């Protein structure tokens, strides 16, 4: 492509009289820059604190530039319980991810492919869970978990987090499956597949990226959850629960390094699934 057609294109477009158009353009660009700064600057400042020595973190005034001292990070990583908490967070999040897909995807598939009595009731149940302050479920579940030996375990917490993530998993996978023409599946049937074979050979390869995206979404839900994690774990704290518990007593540099530990995976994950963030809401919110 040469630049000529582009130039022609700009000329072609009817514009409000020169200056007004340019001023509008300027405001538009300025708004974008401001909004990006609004999102990015606080994150940057968190990283600055994390990459400064503990003394600098508590020092005043601050320069706003990192000294690239690993002091805070080292302190954080060697603080007793942090390693365990990170591991617990990871474990719970992975379990949540697996459960919510294993439970949610079949349901999403059923909703997308069949008309059956009770379908609306199930949808209502799923939507209802969204209107419920779910972390509160941890309160009665704590008792039930003590009885069943699930208290203070990664599995127990993952089950609660799955309640949080399941509605999303169902709705997202529903929209993914609904986006794949039934005819593709039917064509596979006429070509000798049974239902399962058609699913594995045709549907699965097509939805896999989307499934991964919704799994990652479940992961972040669990990774970020604070309340239920604080209620349900005592010895086996997740990172969020650990930080909340120690907020009052821990030094600033521990908080900031902890904050960064919470933020980094989320940044990476959102980047990984950015293509699907929108697809999954487009239909799922009907």
């Amino acid at each position, binding site marked *: 492509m040469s630049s000529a057609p582009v130039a022609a294109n700009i000329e072609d477009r009817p514009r409000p009289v020169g200056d007004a158009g340019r001023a509008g353009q300027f405001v538009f660009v300025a708004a974008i820059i401001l909004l990006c700064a609004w*999102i990015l600057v606080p994150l940057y400042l968190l990283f600055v604190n994390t990459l400064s020595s503990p003394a600098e973190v508590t020092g005043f005034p601050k320069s706003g530039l990192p000294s690239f001292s690993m002091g805070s990070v080292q302190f954080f990583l060697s603080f007793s319980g942090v390693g365990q908490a990170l591991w617990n967070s990871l474990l719970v999040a992975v379990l949540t991810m697996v459960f919510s897909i294993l439970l949610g995807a079949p*349901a999403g598939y*059923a909703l997308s492919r069949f008309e059956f009595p009770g379908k609306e009731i199930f949808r209502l149940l799923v939507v209802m*869970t969204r209107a419920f*302050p779910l972390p509160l479920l941890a309160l009665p579940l704590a008792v039930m978990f003590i009885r069943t030996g699930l208290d203070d375990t990664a599995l127990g917490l993952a089950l609660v987090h799955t309640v949080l993530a399941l509605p999303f998993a169902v709705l997202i996978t529903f929209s993914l499956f609904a986006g794949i023409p039934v005819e593709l599946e039917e064509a596979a049937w006429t070509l000798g597949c049974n239902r399962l074979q058609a699913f594995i050979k045709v549907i699965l390869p097509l939805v896999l990226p989307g499934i991964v995206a919704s799994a990652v979404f479940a992961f972040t839900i669990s990774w970020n959850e604070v309340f239920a994690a604080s209620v349900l774990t005592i010895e086996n704290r997740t990172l969020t629960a650990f930080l909340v518990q120690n907020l009052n007593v821990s030094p600033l540099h521990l908080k900031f390094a902890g*904050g960064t530990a*919470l933020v980094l995976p989320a940044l990476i994950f959102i980047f990984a699934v950015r293509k699907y*963030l*929108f697809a999954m*809401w487009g239909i799922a919110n009907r």
Partner: protein
Amino acid sequence: MTNKALPYLLLTPAILFLLVFFLYPFVQIAVLAFAGPEGFTLSHFQRMTSHWKFGTALANTLILTAIIVPVQLALALSMASIVTRLKTGRSTILYIFAIPLGLSDLAAGIIWLAIFEQSGFLNSLLVGLGLVERPVLFLGYQNIGWIFAAVIIAEIWRATAIMMVILVSGMGIIPKEYYEAAEVFGASRWQRFRKVTLPMLRPSLQTALILRTIAAFEVFAVVVALGGTTLPVLMGETYQWQFSLRDRSVAASYALVILAISIAATLVFLRLLRVPKEAKI
């Protein structure tokens, strides 16, 4: 090739799961809140409401929500409109706008703590510019107003992304022809936004508002990170009663209060932004 049992088979795991881990604890909460030694009782509720923090916590939660959600709605709408208008760099800007989506309220609290704490960046800036003599103690217990503001800012910073994402996808499925038609009939950009975008966006607005309002009622970790227990909110009180005060029945009563206002808000939005079935795209 219809197998009547198959859909139910596929739904069974999810249904069983929700029965055990959603409906059952839901009932349990109700039982805890209303059951006393001699059957039904309102004593837990009385205990909750008679505690001096209850009124404050309820008021704080409602006020926070009433400020945060409308601001977020306006901001999310602007961001979504900007994104949909963008031609170059769209995906980068979108990613930046969507970053907070992956962040917990705890992380947001900590991030804004770095700014608002006494030796933080805001004070560094103010002192550097000579606007104040010495660092201000924004987040002290004498300064409820500032804690309030910090919580509001942190929540707006963090949770606008989810609204924006929902609205962007909503805008994405509005057929282009409507805009073109409106333009042909001479509607200005602002008129197109008011007359085409907003009405067509109702389902998405509904989803976004319901999700965000309910989440705002559950505000917890940001408040703890920025203000400790200085600023009581419903979810924080629930936590306090469960752990510090060790009264699970009152905690359950709190849970029911949060549930009640959540349901009320949901119903209001469902009614307010009703989309008649015949008017769907």
